[in-house]
């Protein structure tokens, strides 16, 4: 019935499912709190800076699609865009966006229009500020860099899915002396963001930020559920190591099953 070597995995999957459901039910009952994330806390400051300087805010969720493997970071980027859009509408600050993929473009326009509606400023919503470039990586990059150079924004958001172009965009942001907030799940690009941007959200930290800013209890609950699995992992790891130091292999062997 069971496959040797996969039993521990099966138990983990079932536990994870239970934990996610548990997290969901908690999150649906009452709002959950999240550990403060500097990059997220800086969002208001960043928008305020643009308002004070009278310069635009630039936002890119990346060139990727909202379907497939690039979906989670792109969607997190769009969730954050909705929030930034509301702040921009509230403070009457221009928000310029570039999007690379047709599907993402459709969602981004829908989301931003909604942000302006919520703030009661639908008349100020200008679809011309959302640029659809190309889903070809470097064509998108060239267009985005050109826009950053022309607009000289006070604040640059590079929050979504980014690959090799990350360094090019981050450098363009630094060259215009703008405050930059970045976030992606692509680990190979995070160091470049980290070195060149003012704030960087790292991997899952960015996904969690996107979930919390969306106010969607299903997403938040699932973050909580995953936290429980991680805690379980940490406990198994530490306990196992301590026991192994004293020659006891119980936990180590359990994980072999």
């Amino acid at each position, binding site marked *: 019935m069971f496959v040797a*070597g*996969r039993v*521990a*995995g099966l138990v*983990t*999957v079932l536990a*994870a499912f239970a934990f996610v459901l548990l*997290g969901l039910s908690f999150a649906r009952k009452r709002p*959950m*709190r*999240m*550990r403060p994330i500097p990059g997220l806390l800086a969002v208001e400051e960043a928008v305020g800076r643009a308002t004070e300087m009278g310069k635009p805010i630039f936002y890119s969720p990346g060139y990727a699609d909202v*379907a*497939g*493997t690039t979906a989670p970071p792109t969607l997190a980027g769009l969730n954050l865009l909705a929030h930034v859009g509301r702040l921009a509408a509230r403070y009457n600050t221009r928000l310029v966006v570039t999007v690379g993929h047709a599907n993402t473009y459709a969602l981004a326009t829908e989301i931003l229009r909604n942000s302006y509606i919520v703030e009661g400023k639908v008349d100020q919503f200008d679809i011309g500020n959302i640029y659809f470039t*190309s889903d*070809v990586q*470097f*064509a998108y990059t*060239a267009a985005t860099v*050109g826009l950053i150079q022309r607009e000289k924004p006070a604040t640059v958001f590079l929050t979504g899915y980014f690959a090799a172009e990350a360094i090019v965009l981050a450098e363009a942001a630094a060259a215009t002396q703008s405050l930059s907030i970045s976030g992606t799940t692509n*680990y*190979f*690009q*995070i*160091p*470049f963001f*980290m*070195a060149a941007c003012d704030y960087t959200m*790292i*991997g*899952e*930290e960015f996904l*969690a930020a996107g979930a*919390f800013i969306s106010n969607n209890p299903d997403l*938040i609950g699932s*973050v*909580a559920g995953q*936290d429980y699995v*991680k*805690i379980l*992992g*940490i406990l*198994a*790891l*530490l306990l*196992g*190591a*301590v026991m*192994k*130091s004293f020659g006891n292999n119980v*936990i*180590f062997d359990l*994980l*072999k099953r």
Partner: protein
Amino acid sequence: MSADPVIWVSSILTIIGFSYLFKENELYRAVEHLYVGVAAGYTVVMGYTNVVNKVWGPLTKKGQYTVLIPAVLGFLLFMPYISKSLGWLRRLPVAVIVAIGAALSLRTAVVEQFIGQLRPAIIPLNSINNVIITLGTAVTLCYFIFTVKPNPVLKVGVEGGKWVIMVTLGAAFGAGIMGRISLLIGRLFLVFQDWIPLIKKV
């Protein structure tokens, strides 16, 4: 200089590509579009080959009619271009691909990455390096816990996690720079060895 037309064309395209660094220009934009077109066409050819091998062949030569199911599903991907009211049918093949992807990565991520990486991290704490490896893994995990109420233990974990992650990202930073330099060296070989023989061949 080389007499090979492949070397000539690729070197000239390379130089036009690099001309962007000097100034964005019309030629650069032209080769950019050329690239997008060729890449998309190339991908279509590969997809076509797959479909011929996996659908047309089995259907006509072996009479395997079951391959029609995925073929129809594949066709439905293009529904939004054909009919507005039936565009939603695109969701069916998308549901299939996404579910396969999710299930395949879920089932092996838990065994090979979650359990498979927890187990080798359980090592006797008998050397400084072993302690760093085990504790480092634990605090890195702490950094990615977001919803648990802050307590002193978790705070120490998160703070420690930050440092381990920074050094880890530093390693990725160095490796990333190395890789980019290699790629540029590759282009220099093309232009200054294969095309204009400035670099001696080994």
